[in-house]
């Protein structure tokens, strides 16, 4: 018998998407700050291959990751 493992996942079940903000291809361009505008337009960055999207997703991840983690509630019974 073959166990049903659900639909095929190319990343082996690893999900790195974001659930709290939407930075899909069509909304990315709506985000602006000095730094992002510079790395999107200046040749110094473009030619070197610096990724504005990578920076954006890191900033967004940092901004919203762990908001629902309540340390005081999750850690009380662990022995230190």
């Amino acid at each position, binding site marked *: 018998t073959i166990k049903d493992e659900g639909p095929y996942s190319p990343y082996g079940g690893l999900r790195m998407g974001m659930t709290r903000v939407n930075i899909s291809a069509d909304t990315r361009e709506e985000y602006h700050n000095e730094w992002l505008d510079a790395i999107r337009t200046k040749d110094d960055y473009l030619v070197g291959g610096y990724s504005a999207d990578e920076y954006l997703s890191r900033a967004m991840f940092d901004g919203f990751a762990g908001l629902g983690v309540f340390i005081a509630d999750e850690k*009380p019974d662990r022995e230190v």
Partner: protein
Amino acid sequence: MATEDERYRQSTQFRLWSFSPSQLQDLRHKTNSLAQQQIAPRLSGSPSPEFLTAAEEAQLVKFFTVELIRAAQFCELPTEIRSTAAIFLRRFYVTNSVMTYPPTELLKTSLFFGCKAEGFYIRLAKLAEKFTNTSSEQILAGEYLLCQGIRFAFDVRHPFRALEGAVLELRRKLPEEEGRVSRAHARAREILKFSPLVTDVYFHYTPSQIMMAALLMVDAGLVDKLLPPEEGDGGAPGKMWLAGDMRNKIMVALDGCRRMLEEEPPERMTEYWATPETVKSMKPLRKKLQRCRDPDRADLVALQKARREQAVTKEKKTEGGGDDAAVFGDADRDAKRRKVDGDDIFGGPL
């Protein structure tokens, strides 16, 4: 459950260095009483001196954290490095007592190691040059000790990039209120550079919560924009996660974090060293520390030398019980080793 939260829970910051307030307090008390027990027999004076209490130790650590921030500013180190170094120092003194290892030395070591941890490989001699009466050997002597103290957790998550993310989101949502957002951004950044480092918020809250709490101090309306209170509009990805009482729980956490941050607003930074009252109030503590510190471990350079010599002599000898005891601190390690020897090498049966 949001995948972002799951990913944060995998970090060493959450697994090893996040505690509930009571846990942290217990840890500090335990560290303090252990240090007292260990130091008392080593001090020669027959009536053992008055030891620092856990609260006094915390006060001293705060003082030395501010000193570290000042030193980092003096060396013109970037914000992230300065913060990482400060957190290293604070973490080290959760499980080690100020009386055991000298904070004035560890301060420079964590600055040096903070640079390394952030991928900024400053020359050791160059850093030592900046401080008076400091050799590179002195900075290095505490390095491995520091690594052990922070349990090899070198990745510290800071709220600075989180703030950039939140500001990006705010700018998208409020394109016509540029000025307000920029002002809040600047002020929140100022808070994040100081307040979280001298309080315990890094132990009790996640970086995004710390960032939001700083924003809450500056402009509460902006936090409402980021965590919209009105009910979701049909499956928009930004709203689902605030359903139920999630938003309330987050707001309660943010409020607690904000109160902690407000105890140490950035304006107090200069107070720590510029006002004579604070300097004076630290003096008795430092004097007390002089009297009750561990005589064998105050000099890190000598300590490292002794450990090295011991490692060399041990290689030559097969049975080196008496020799090990000459260098203190290894008595407990030997006890452990003996226990393992008697048992199965992989430990007892499960």
